[in-house]
C-alpha cells in the first residue's frame, strides 16, 4: 500500500509510504485516482514515511493535490512539503513563462468542401511532382556538365576514385553475377528443352539460350543485381556523408561534390557494368551448354556449333550496348537520392529504397524502349 487514506470528521488524511518512483507510477496514479476528494474540506498529507520520492512520484502527488484543490479542498502537509514538489512547481512556472513568450499557434485553416479539397490535393501533388522532376533534371544536368568538364580537364577526372568504384561495383560483383547468370540460363535451357522435345526440336535449345542471354537476360539481370548492390551502396554512402556534414565540408573546402563523389561513381559503374555483362553472357552460354550436355546428351562441340549459327553480327552488341545506359540510370538514381538525404536515419532508409526501386524501374523501362528501337531498326 503506497497511500493510506483515513477519513476524519473534517476531511481526509493521506499517509504516503514506501517507494514513490517512476516504476510504481502506474499503481500510484490508479490508487490516487480512486481517492474521492469531493466531500473533503481538508486534505492532510503526511509524506514523511516515504522512503523514496522521485520526480514521477512527485508528479502523481502534484496531480492529486491539484485535483483536490479544484474540488475545493484545502491541502496541507504534515511537517514540510516534500522538496520534490517545490522543484516541480519551479519547473512548471518556468515552463509557463516560456509558453507566454513563445509565438501564438497558427490559426486553424478554414474548412473546405470535398471538391475543393480534392482540387487542393491535386494541385499540391502536381506541384510536388513537377518540383521533383525539375530537381531530377537539374541533377542530371549538373552531373553531365561536371562530367564533360572533367573529361575536358583530365586533371579533374579522379582516376583513383574511378578505379575504386570499378573494383567495388564490378570485380567484387563477379561471383554473384556469374552464379545467377549460370543458374538462370540453365533454367531457361531446361524449360525450353521440355517444350521443344515434344516437337523433336530440342536442338534449338541452344538458339534460345544464346539469343535470350545475349540480347536480354545477361544485361538485364546484371543490371538488376548491380542496382541492388551498388545503387543502394551509392545512396547509402552519399546519404550518410550528407548526414555527417561531409558533403558540406567538401563544398566549404571549395571542392565540388559532383566532381569527387557523383561523376567518379557514374563513370566507374559505366565501365564496370558492360564488363560484368560480358562475363554474365559468357557464363550464361556456358550454363546452357552444361545443361544441354548433361540433360539432352548434346555434345559440347554440337552446342558450340549451334550457338555460332544462332549468333548474328548484332546479337552480342544489341545486348552490350544497353549496359552503359543502364549503368548511367543506376548510378544517377543512387547518387541523386543519396544527396537528397537531409535530416534523419529514417530518411536515409527511405531514399535508399527509392533509389533501388527507381533504378530497377527505369532500367526495365529503358529496356522496353530499346526493344522497340531494335525492332524498328530490324536487328
Amino acid at each position: 500500500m503506497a497511500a493510506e487514506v483515513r477519513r476524519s470528521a473534517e476531511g481526509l488524511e493521506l499517509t504516503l509510504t514506501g517507494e514513490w518512483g517512476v516504476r510504481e507510477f502506474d499503481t500510484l496514479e490508479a490508487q490516487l485516482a480512486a481517492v474521492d476528494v469531493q466531500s473533503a474540506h481538508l486534505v492532510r498529507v503526511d509524506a514523511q514515511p516515504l522512503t523514496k520520492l522521485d520526480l514521477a512520484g512527485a508528479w502523481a502527488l502534484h496531480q492529486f493535490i491539484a485535483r483536490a484543490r479544484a474540488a475545493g479542498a484545502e491541502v496541507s502537509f504534515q511537517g514540510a512539503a516534500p522538496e520534490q514538489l517545490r522543484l516541480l512547481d519551479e519547473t512548471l512556472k518556468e515552463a509557463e513563462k516560456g509558453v507566454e513568450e513563445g509565438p501564438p499557434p497558427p490559426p486553424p485553416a478554414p474548412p473546405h468542401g470535398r471538391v475543393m479539397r480534392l482540387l487542393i490535393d491535386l494541385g499540391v501533388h502536381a506541384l510536388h511532382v513537377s518540383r521533383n522532376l525539375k530537381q531530377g533534371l537539374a541533377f542530371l544536368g549538373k552531373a553531365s556538365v561536371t562530367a564533360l568538364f572533367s573529361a575536358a580537364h583530365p586533371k579533374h577526372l579522379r582516376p583513383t576514385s574511378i578505379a575504386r568504384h570499378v573494383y567495388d561495383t564490378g570485380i567484387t560483383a563477379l561471383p554473384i553475377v556469374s552464379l545467377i547468370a549460370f543458374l538462370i540460363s540453365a533454367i531457361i535451357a531446361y524449360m525450353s528443352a521440355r517444350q521443344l522435345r515434344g516437337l523433336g526440336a530440342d536442338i534449338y535449345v541452344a538458339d534460345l539460350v544464346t539469343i535470350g542471354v545475349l540480347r536480354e537476360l545477361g544485361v538485364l539481370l546484371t543490371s538488376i543485381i548491380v542496382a541492388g548492390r551498388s545503387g543502394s551502396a551509392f545512396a547509402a554512402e552519399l546519404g550518410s556523408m550528407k548526414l555527417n556534414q561531409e558533403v558540406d565540408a567538401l563544398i566549404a573546402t571549395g571542392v565540388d561534390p559532383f566532381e569527387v563523389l557523383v561523376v567518379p561513381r557514374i563513370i566507374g559503374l559505366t565501365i564496370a557494368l558492360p564488363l560484368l555483362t560480358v562475363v554474365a553472357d559468357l557464363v550464361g552460354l556456358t550454363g546452357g551448354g552444361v545443361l544441354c550436355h548433361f540433360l539432352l546428351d548434346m555434345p559440347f562441340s554440337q552446342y558450340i556449333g549451334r550457338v555460332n549459327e544462332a549468333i548474328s553480327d548484332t546479337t552480342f552488341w544489341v545486348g552490350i550496348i544497353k549496359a552503359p545506359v543502364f549503368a548511367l540510370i543506376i548510378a544517377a538514381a543512387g547518387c541523386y537520392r543519396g544527396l537528397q538525404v537531409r535530416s534523419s536515419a529514417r530518411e536515409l532508409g527511405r531514399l535508399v529504397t527509392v533509389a533501388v526501386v527507381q533504378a530497377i524501374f527505369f532500367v526495365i523501362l529503358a529496356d522496353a524502349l530499346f526493344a522497340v528501337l531494335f525492332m524498328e531498326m530490324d536487328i
Partner: protein
Amino acid sequence: MDPVVQVQGLVNRFGTQVVHDGLDMQVMPDEVFGIVGGSGTGKSVLLRTILGLQRPQAGVVRIDGHDITQMTEAQLRIVKSHYGVSFQAGALYSGLTVKENIQLPMLEYLKLSERALDDLALLKICLVGLSPQAAGKYPSELSGGMVKRVALARALALDPSLLFLDEPTSGLDPIGAAAFDDLVLYLQRELKLTIVMITHDLDSIFRTCNRVGVIVDGRMISDTLEGIVDNPNPWIQEYFHGERARARVEALQHGA
C-alpha cells in the same frame, strides 16, 4: 557509505596497445566526479566499459555493488535502467521527435498510460529548461545546445540516481556551457544525483566537479578538486597550471 561506481584493476587492451593497465576509480553517492585525460588515454573506453558496452580483459566494475563484468545481458539490462547516459553528440534518435526520444526508455521499461507518458515527458522537457513547444520537433531542427538538453532529459527519463555525461559542454559557447553546467548542478542538487562526467572543459570542471580523476599511463589519479591541482604529476601540472588554467586555479585558491 558504499561507492556507487567502483572500478578495480581494470585492464583494457586492443591488440598490443594497452589502454588501461590496472585502473582504479571510485565514485561516492551525491558527488560529481570528473574524468579528465589527454586524447587517446581511454576516457571513452572507460565509460564504455562502465556502461557494459564492452567487456574488459581483466578487472571489476561495480555499479551499486553489483559486478557488471560477470553479468548476463538480461541482468545487465536491469542495471542499465538504473542509470542515465548522455552521449557526446547527443545520439538522439533522428527519426523520433524530442518527446518520443524521451519516451523511448519509458516505453521500454515501464507500463504507463498514454497521458502519463506525455505528462512525464513534458515534465522532463521543462526540467532541462526547454519550452514545451520543443516536444514535437525533430533532432535535425534543434540547435546544438538544445540537443544537449534533450539528451540530458532522455538520460533522466527513468528518474535514475546515477548519471553519466560524456563531454556535456563540448561544442557549446562559453555562455551556453556555463548555463548547462548550472543546469547540471541544479539537477544534481535537487534530484540528489550522482554524476560521472568526462570533460575537457576546465570551466566545467571548476564549476561542477567535487572530485576529479585523471587518467595517466593507463591508471587513474583521483583526488578532490583542491587536491588534484597540487598533484606533482607532470601532465596534471601542465593541465591545471598551463596558460589556460592558471587564472582559474588562482580563483579557486583565493576562494578557499
